[in-house]
């Protein structure tokens, strides 16, 4: 087990900056997710940590050791690949035993056998050890890949989208298994994923990447409830946040937000440098539908579409200016297209973004204290 530190690490391919001056510190025993869309730099970060690619600048440290110039085999870490990378010409036993046999000093045969059996037992593979990778299912292959990573007790575990090739249900089950595994072995884990819900459920902290830059580093609550910029507000969460252009009127606690057919009191102190014209962002669960004639309605709109997604009903409402707002409701509610409805927004959940820099200039700090603003 060890800490991991990236110190001003960058990676350049020709003219493309795949990773730009990354500073990131991972605590000992922490489960950290590198989250981002493809091409965001998250997989590059993992490759640089594993030593599969050379850095273009900066230093990488594992514990107190500078490993920047060490080859992969000298870094004492384990990597689970997205496609598992099991050795097809070896049995599962040989696959799992591989990291023990590959290193010197090589443990005694009896010890290798015992450790392979223990690992296989933990992962429910004990009855399959004489088979070849092509003879087992995708979920089992995935567990063999995990077993091969676990057996050596490496200082750091790297996982590169390990669940993305599994079907949806198995993926959710393996997610819990992974979490339980981490709780048990308490290793430092660096987990790369483009699936924000995976990152949210598994991680102690999430590092969100976009365009080769670290956008935000924080707990799942942080990135969900206090997105640093517009990209994160859209990327984290099952759905994009509702965004609309608006103008802030009034000062201090009297400030009001108006725009896109929506008008409401913000009831919060705004930073002095806040521009008058902002981009307001609010998640679907922070908007409610009510009777259009009710008092305190923030907007009136027309239902354009209704989507039932299992436990949730998503209702799309176009305001008077045509801006579409997505609302999450209880599926037992009935809404139909062309119905006229009223909208109320939870003022404490609205984030205000600078329309020029896209940075968040005023968080709705709902996650921290939902009631304090009401």
């Amino acid at each position, binding site marked *: 087990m060890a800490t991991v530190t990236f110190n001003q690490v960058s990676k350049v391919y020709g003219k493309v900056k795949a990773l730009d001056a990354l500073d990131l510190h991972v605590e000992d025993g922490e489960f950290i997710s590198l989250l981002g869309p493809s091409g965001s730099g998250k997989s590059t970060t993992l490759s640089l940590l*594993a*030593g*599969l690619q050379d850095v273009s600048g900066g230093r990488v440290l594992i514990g107190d050791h500078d490993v920047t110039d060490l*080859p*992969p*085999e000298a*870094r004492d*870490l*384990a*990597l689970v*690949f*997205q*496609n*598992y*990378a*099991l*050795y*097809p*010409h070896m049995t599962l036993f040989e696959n799992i035993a*591989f*990291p023990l046999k*590959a*290193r010197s000093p090589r443990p005694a045969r009896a010890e290798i056998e015992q450790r392979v059996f223990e690992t296989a037992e933990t992962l429910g593979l004990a009855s399959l050890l004489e088979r*070849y*990778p*092509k*003879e087992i299912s*995708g979920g089992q*292959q995935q567990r063999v890949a995990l077993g*091969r990573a676990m057996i*050596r007790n490496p200082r750091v575990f790297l996982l590169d989208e390990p669940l*993305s*090739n599994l079907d949806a249900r198995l993926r959710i089950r393996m997610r819990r298994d992974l979490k339980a595994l981490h709780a048990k072995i308490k290793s430092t884990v660096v987990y790369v994923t483009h699936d924000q819900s995976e990152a949210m459920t598994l991680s102690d902290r999430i590092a969100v990447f976009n365009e080769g830059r670290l956008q935000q580093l924080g707990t799942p609550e942080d990135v969900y409830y206090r997105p640093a910029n517009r990209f994160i507000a859209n990327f984290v969460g099952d759905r994009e946040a509702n965004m609309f252009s608006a103008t802030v009127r009034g000062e201090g606690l009297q400030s009001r937000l108006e725009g896109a057919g929506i008008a409401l009191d913000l009831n919060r102190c705004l930073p002095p440098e806040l521009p008058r014209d902002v981009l307001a962002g609010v998640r679907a669960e922070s908007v409610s539908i009510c009777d259009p004639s009710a008092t305190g309605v923030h907007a009136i709109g027309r239902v354009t579409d209704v989507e039932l997604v299992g436990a949730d009903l998503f209702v799309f409402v176009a305001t008077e200016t045509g801006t579409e707002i997505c609302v999450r409701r209880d599926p037992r509610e009935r809404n139909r297209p062309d119905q006229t409805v009223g909208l109320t927004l939870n003022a404490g959940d609205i984030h205000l973004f600078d329309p020029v820099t896209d940075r968040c200039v005023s968080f709705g700090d709902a996650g921290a204290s939902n009631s304090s603003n009401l």
Partner: protein
Amino acid sequence: MSEATFEPPRRGAWRARVARRTAGSLVVNAVIALFALFPILWGLSTSLKPKDEIVAYPPRLLPSAVTFEHYMRVFNDSVGHYILNSTIVTAAAIVLTLAAGALGGYALARFQFRGRGMAMVFIVGVMSIPIASLLVPTYSTLSVLGLLNTRTGLVLLYTAYQLPIVIWTLYGYFLSLPVELEQAARIDGYSSSRVLWRIVLPLSKPGLVAAALFVAVFSWNDFVVAVTMTSSESVRTLPVAIYNYLGFYGREWGPLLAASIISIIPIVAGFLFLQRYFVSGLTGGGTKG
């Protein structure tokens, strides 16, 4: 016009069509096979004919009585020794080309280094030089090295001639392997040379077999190079020995064809035995996605 009438196809009509197509393709393939195989079958038949029947007119397709006298004769002429020479030279050329070709092909496939593009252009370029134009310069080179009239000299020449195509074949095969397997082995503790030896080569059997067959066919069949570079009987290879039956005292068709048939056998057997490697994928199940 009246309503379009729609006649349902006769039941079983498609079966007849499939049968006709199968029969047609069988006939075409049989004609092609016969055309290609006829000289060999004719040679086989002749090698089994009694001496006086070989040049009989009109020619007989099949021997009236099968005889092995020509085969006895070539073995008495120490054809075994020439087979041994050919085997040694071929085997050594295969080992050398695969060893050097695997290293070269792997370097080109997986490492970025200065001059890599140039090296690849060069390798493809030298493949197009005809061997005939290399005979004189390589003859002088061997003579300077003192390797004329030795099996070592032949092995080195065969290796040099065949190395480019072996490198190119293996390079292409290595590229088709998932690089994650090699990365996994590196992270698990292998050095890059062990990765090549223990992970890449075991998974490259089809590529290695294909490359080895190229070299085997060339080295086993080579006549021009062997007849130019060797002269003594002790290092004579089989194709040169066969040529000697077109000898001084007239053409000895029986022994000539018997020796030819013997020389074909290893190549045919090799292809039949190794053919599964061309069709089977060995890397199945290792990676997903």
